[in-house]
């Protein structure tokens, strides 16, 4: 009896310790997010607060400007926002159908041997460092676009779209596939039992039942596309001004604006780069809000 109580006490202590250990580790993630957010916002909002040591800049000029010339004190990023959004939109329009159909093929149609080739290939695609995607884009996609483009250079919105499309595939495929796999077989059997064909079953029962999981994959893909930096930097062209007016126009995504200039910028210029980061951050927050919306009540939660 006595002994048992001691044991209980000891176990209780262990449980408590374990609990705090987990809590501590979880806190690391939370603190990191909070620290990054604070840092970016703190530095990035300075130029818009009157009396800033490095000088002031109008928030409206910043958000509506079509020119980025630090040397003459012009910091407009509207054309970058438009470029980033168009590139992301294009990558989603092309990448999502390809990704979903690939996932359907892997999960529902492929014979075993095909699965053992495609699945590792997709995982591999996810693991390739993004700079290598950029090199591929620069070496293959850009020269190809140069041949069909009316413009002198191949670096363009279209090149970014293609590179991003390939880069979001692993995200869309993996998440869609797991959403499809979590659709109960009872639904499939119910459909087959009514004489429906395999394809009819996939499009009318399986995909609709996996809908919220698939949407989550799409939203994560959007997040990946809008935040991608290295690969797009190599193929975007990064002009200093101008809205893109065709898919062959070069663009300057928000991410590459920061990455290209941060190493040598100082003063107000540096703070404006942080401000660009704030805009990027706001987009990511929006995407996460949407994500938590669409995954509500879904299998991914």
């Amino acid at each position, binding site marked *: 009896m006595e002994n048992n109580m001691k044991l209980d006490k000891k176990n209780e202590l262990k449980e408590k310790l374990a609990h705090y250990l987990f809590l501590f580790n979880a806190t690391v993630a939370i603190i990191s997010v909070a620290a990054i957010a604070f840092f970016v916002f703190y530095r990035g909002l300075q130029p818009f607060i009157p009396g800033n040591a490095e000088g002031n800049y109008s928030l409206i000029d910043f958000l509506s400007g079509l020119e980025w010339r630090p040397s003459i004190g012009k910091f407009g990023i509207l054309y970058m926002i438009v470029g980033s959004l168009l590139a992301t939109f294009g990558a989603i329009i092309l990448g999502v159908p390809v990704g979903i159909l690939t996932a359907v093929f892997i999960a529902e149609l492929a014979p075993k041997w095909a699965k053992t080739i495609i699945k590792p290939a997709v995982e591999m695609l996810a693991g390739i460092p993004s700079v290598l995607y950029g090199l591929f884009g620069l070496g293959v996609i850009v020269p190809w676009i140069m041949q069909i483009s009316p413009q002198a250079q191949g670096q363009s919105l279209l090149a970014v779209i293609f590179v991003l499309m390939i880069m979001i595939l692993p995200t869309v495929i993996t998440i869609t596939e797991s959403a499809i796999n979590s659709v109960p077989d*009872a*639904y499939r059997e*119910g459909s*087959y*039992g*009514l*004489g429906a*064909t395999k394809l009819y079953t996939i499009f*009318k029962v399986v995909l609709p039942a996996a809908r919220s999981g698939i949407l989550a994959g799409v939203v994560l893909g959007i997040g990946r596309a809008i935040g991608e930096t290295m690969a797009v930097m190599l193929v975007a062209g990064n002009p200093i001004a101008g809205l893109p007016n065709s898919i062959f126009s070069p663009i300057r995504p928000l991410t590459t604006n920061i990455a290209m200039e941060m190493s040598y910028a100082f003063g107000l210029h540096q703070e404006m780069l942080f401000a660009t980061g704030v805009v990027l951050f706001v987009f990511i927050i929006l995407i996460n809000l949407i994500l938590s919306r669409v995954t509500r009540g879904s299998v991914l939660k």
Partner: protein
Amino acid sequence: MENKFSIKNLDMYYGDFQALKNINMEIKPKEITSLIGPSGCGKSTFLRTLNRMNDLIEGVRVEGEVLLDGEDIYKEIDVTKLRTRIGMVFQKPNPFPMSVYDNVAYGPRAHGIKKKSELDEIVERSLKRAAIWDEVKDRIKRNALSLSGGQQQRICIARALAVEPEVLLMDEPTSALDPISTLKVEDLAEELKKEITIIIVTHNMQQAARISDKTAFFLNGELIEFDETDFIFSTPRDKRTEDYITGRFG
């Protein structure tokens, strides 16, 4: 009377494991046949060979003949066609996560019926035949998953009836239901029997005795005894059947 089903020397394997051994059986139209036997004896397996549902499982092999109105279902009938002629109701109610209407209209739509008025008519008729119309007619656009288990099961029956099957296979359709819903499904089966052939798997002896014309007793993948339900329950020929129905078994 012609046989609806003639099953001849049927063997069925899951890979190396033989789940059905030399089954011979003749099923008359517009009768209810109960399949009974201890868990794992092959009742579901047998039922699923009748609409080729086992085709979906890898490594399954079927030998022998299953004739539907004299035609071999594994050789002479297209599988999607077969499954419209033979409806199935599963142990766990499995309505699709969509409205009651879309559930019932699913089969007809899968077979190309698009006209709204025609679908409306089929949905109403099927729900009425499944004795659930009165309960759902005001919420036909509601998600079927919001209904009770017993209602869901009758929606599934309506869904199966919507493609006008000649045979209805039911795998323990009432095992997840309360006694009142169970009675409703049983009454429904007796009503449907006027028009279609029903084969039902059940662990409930009273249910088999109440509703079926014929009863088949399976054990370890073999058909031990198959006869008029009254005979099986009063004077079974085989000792093992007697042991099972009197509860001295499995």
